[in-house]
């Protein structure tokens, strides 16, 4: 299996290296779909320039990266291309290993269930075979590395690629069962962009499941492990934040990074829902709607954790997808991370209801983004509404995609317990509805 992965990696690096040296790299760095005020490379360079001038990079409102990023690029600024390629490689390999391990777990569980005869007899066609699962890890790596969104993000040197690498490492260490490393990487991901905070719940559920500790509020072992994991997480977060303080010896980065993410002062257009909404917002409702929109990202964690407590990896996928749709400064790099997981759920394909429509919408929107941007900003023949309409449609597409996968997942689980071919009371073929 290592050979095809190496091949994919070589192909991916070659494509990126070619694009880095082509004339496409420069315009890509300005694309609002690919870079946001949070992760634009131009702003990283600006932060370093401000440091060179002897000013704090956070004294202005251009630089919003964390101090660790500035520290990293302080040393490797000349090798930035390579750093971003390595980050993509790390993400792909980490996801590859994680999914490989996860598939083994899934298969083992399925085997036990079959042996215990827990599946209804007509569900045999839902049973996953090792043959179809064999190429899934490779497909995941392929989906991440050769996704045009990832490639653009990498060539534009959006630091989103680094965040993705941290999240991938977090997933890997969680699935490998290392509670400490998982907590460290989760803390690092949270430190980078707050939102991965919601991944705490699925990681905890997965680790509990792995240790065969039932989620039972009356069991001390449950509370003990939860406490242990939370302390590790908060402790490493604390260490990282303090480390950042000592790097620049000021707390300026807190409002400049986290305040910036949460209060959305920069309304530069992007593919998300925030920019136009808050550009057109009435001033006295602004605070209210900021709260509503930000809570919206964190809101789904608890109900989803309850519903999916047996399936934490699917929960991770759902959370990453929700974050990338509803976060304040989304870029295509965020989307590529959850899209990499789609091959893992290839067995849900038969239950997807509108995958064709969604794919068409996503493809059409991806093509229309640059077109309508050009019409608005350069040609002047369109206005902001055109671009806004496309972001709306793109987000509807993403929401449909995610909810469709969620639906399919729940439906398959339902069939696995109740049988695939359901009958009505009168014996005719039944249709399933949500009630």
């Amino acid at each position, binding site marked *: 299996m290592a050979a095809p992965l190496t091949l994919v990696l070589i192909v991916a690096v070659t494509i990126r290296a070619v694009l880095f040296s082509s004339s496409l790299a420069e315009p890509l760095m300005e694309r609002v779909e690919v870079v946001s005020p949070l992760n634009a490379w131009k702003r990283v360079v600006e932060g370093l320039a401000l440091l060179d001038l002897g000013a704090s990079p956070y*004294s202005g*409102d*251009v630089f919003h990266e964390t101090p660790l990023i500035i520290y990293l690029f302080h040393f490797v600024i000349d090798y930035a291309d390579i750093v971003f390629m390595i980050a993509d490689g790390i993400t792909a390999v980490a996801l590859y290993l994680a999914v490989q391990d996860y598939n083994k777990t899934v298969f083992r569980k399925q085997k036990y269930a079959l042996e215990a005869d827990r599946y209804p007899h007509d569900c045999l066609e839902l049973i996953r075979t090792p043959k179809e699962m064999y190429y899934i890890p490779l497909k995941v790596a392929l989906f991440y590395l050769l996704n045009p969104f990832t490639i653009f993000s990498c060539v534009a040197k959006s630091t989103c690629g680094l965040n993705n690498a941290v999240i991938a490492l977090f997933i890997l260490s969680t699935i490998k069962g290392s509670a400490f490393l998982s907590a460290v990487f989760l803390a690092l991901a949270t430190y980078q962009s707050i939102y991965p905070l919601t991944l705490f719940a699925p990681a905890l559920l997965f680790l509990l499941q792995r240790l065969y500790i039932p989620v039972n509020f009356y069991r001390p072992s449950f509370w003990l492990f939860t406490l242990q994991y939370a302390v590790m997480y908060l402790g490493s977060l604390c260490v990282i934040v303090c480390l950042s303080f000592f790097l620049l010896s000021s707390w300026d980065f807190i409002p400049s990074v986290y305040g910036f993410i949460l209060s959305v002062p920069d309304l530069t257009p992007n593919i998300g829902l925030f920019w136009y909404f808050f550009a057109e917002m009435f001033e006295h409702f602004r605070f209210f709607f900021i709260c509503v929109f930000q809570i*919206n990202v964190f809101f789904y964690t608890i109900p989803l954790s309850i519903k999916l407590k047996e399936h934490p990896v699917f929960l991770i996928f759902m959370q990453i997808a929700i974050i990338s749709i509803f976060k304040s400064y989304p870029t295509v790099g965020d989307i590529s991370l959850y899209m990499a997981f789609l091959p893992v759920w290839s067995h849900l394909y038969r239950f997807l209801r509108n995958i064709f429509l969604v794919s068409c919408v996503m493809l059409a929107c991806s093509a229309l983004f640059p077109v309508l941007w050009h019409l608005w900003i350069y040609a002047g023949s369109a206005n902001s509404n055109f671009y806004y309409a496309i972001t709306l449609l793109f987000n509807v597409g993403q929401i449909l995609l995610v*909810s469709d996968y969620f639906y399919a997942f729940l439906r398959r689980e*339902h069939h696995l317990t*109740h049988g695939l071919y359901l009958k009505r009371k009168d014996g005719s073929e039944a249709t*399933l*509805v949500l*009630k």
Partner: protein
Amino acid sequence: NLCTAALLAAVLVCGLTCASTAAAEEAITEEYESISNANEHVQAQDDYARSQKRREITEHDDDQNEPPPSSSSSSSSSSSSSSSPPSKDYFKEELVIRPLSSGDIYASFQFQTRWDTDFFAPGKKVSHYRLFPKSLGQLMSKFSVREMHVSFTQGYWRTMQWGQPFLPAPPGAELWVWFQDSVADVDGAWKELTNVLSGIFCASLNFIDSTNTVEPTASFKPLGVGNVTHQRFLRYAVLPREIVCTENLTPWKKLLPCGSKAGLAVLMKSEKLFHSSFLSLAVHIRPVCQDWGCKGTAWELRQTVNVVFDLHTTGQGKREWSFFKMFSRTLTEACPLATSSKVYIDVTDNPQGELFELNPAAPSLTQAVVLGDRRTYAVYDLMASGTFGLLRSLNVLLRWKTPVDMLRPLLHGERYVAGYGLQTGEIHTLIYNNHPYRAFPVLLLDIVPWYLRLYIHTLTVTSKSRENKPSYIHYQPSKDRLRPHLLEMLIQLPPNSVTEVTVQFERALLKWTEYTPDPNHGFYVGSSVISALVPSVVAMDTSYTLEHPLFSTFFPCKEESSYFVRVYTEPLLVNLPTPDFSMPYNVICLTCTVVAVGYGSLYNLLTRTFQVEEPSPGVVKRLANMIRYLRGVPLL
């Protein structure tokens, strides 16, 4: 009276905008008092002036070229009529006319009120005002202002065509103030001061806030005496969009001791002044030395008007200028309160009268070193009765015989925005050093509003297609909605070169309420300021011993080999991307719908469970069931 009403309204408005209401009320009452006092004071002075006019004019008949002590005679004569003057004050007025090579004509009025008193002497409250306007005096003492410079300018000074002005000013309104070092809350004082000035000058100075105020470190040093030079006490702001109009000129004229009733100010007729290519009104207050030894300080109020009349619109294409043609008035008398009242005509290029002729011929000639050049001026002294001739009026006429060339200004600057589209752009500033063999350093000050996000790492400075690294850079990045970018650089200009400074920026999308009412007109970016000590062709006069004309003494001159010049570049007009202003409701509804679609579909899947759909019973059966339910009978 109309304008007094307008002033009062403006003061009330400015008072409303004041943060602290108590302070504001105090300011309003004080301000109102001071304004009404100032008006009364002007009227009283006028009455006084009429009675004293004859006598003073005859007194000053024969001392036209005397140094400042000459003024003491008038002040002593006036002091003998009033009981006991607390301190001495003088008023001088001056008009300089410089024919420009383009055929346009430059007229610069300077009015100086000097008062040998100290506003800030401990335990002494200055309450008796004579020539110094009370409104400004109270303002100075209330806000502990050490130095104040305010200018209102319409049009752009074209340095390449017109040379250097006596008093440079950027288009729009410019205000810079040095506070006393005793001021603790400089920002608060600045805020109140701008509101009060806004009322005094009927201008939009109340729009000065933290987003357009900066503290330059090097470009704006105090022009008066004093030793506080920490930029903490300095505030500088420009409003490039400010429109200058009659409503600004009227309160400006009321600050003069004679108003516009006598003296040179008679010429300031607004319909003529505003029908010009360039008009700049300014008020400068600063402490100056009382005497050559500088034992005590005096307050100098300098009011200036600089105006350029266009050859084609005002002169109807004929190179023939007279007072009447320019101002549609002639001079009939000096301001009776003035100790000196003179008209200077620049005749340097015309020593023998071969280029143009002056009519009436000038009674005397004088020389002055100004802006690094020794110039010859024809002088008409309005204190001398012979000046006015038989018609009792002075209408100087300049009639050209042949076209002329102009000395190229040694330093000048240009600025423009490059790039297309509404996403990014690049500001180019070109600084020309036209000196054939001397290099000299200049300070470049750029203030860019926050919504153009500058990327300082893209800053390049090139001279003669080679990189020219600035020896000093002070960069203060902007804060969104709080403060602008401030960029100050010290650049060495090689001789006979063009230095290009470029920096890239990104245009921000603002909230819909932050746009101006005409957002597609664009946003103004104030002029950048180039300050320099330019090597002088002739030795500059650094001595205080001689009496200089007012126009040559504005910028203090410390060394003989160079002179100070401030050049303002063009303001920029930059377009920003705009949202659609007509549809906030639609956007709120549509975005909320999308969020609701997300919420709804997840909510559905989270709360509902899969069930087998049973065929729904027919209408008749349902109706029957409903009736049976009401009757309490088991359902079918």
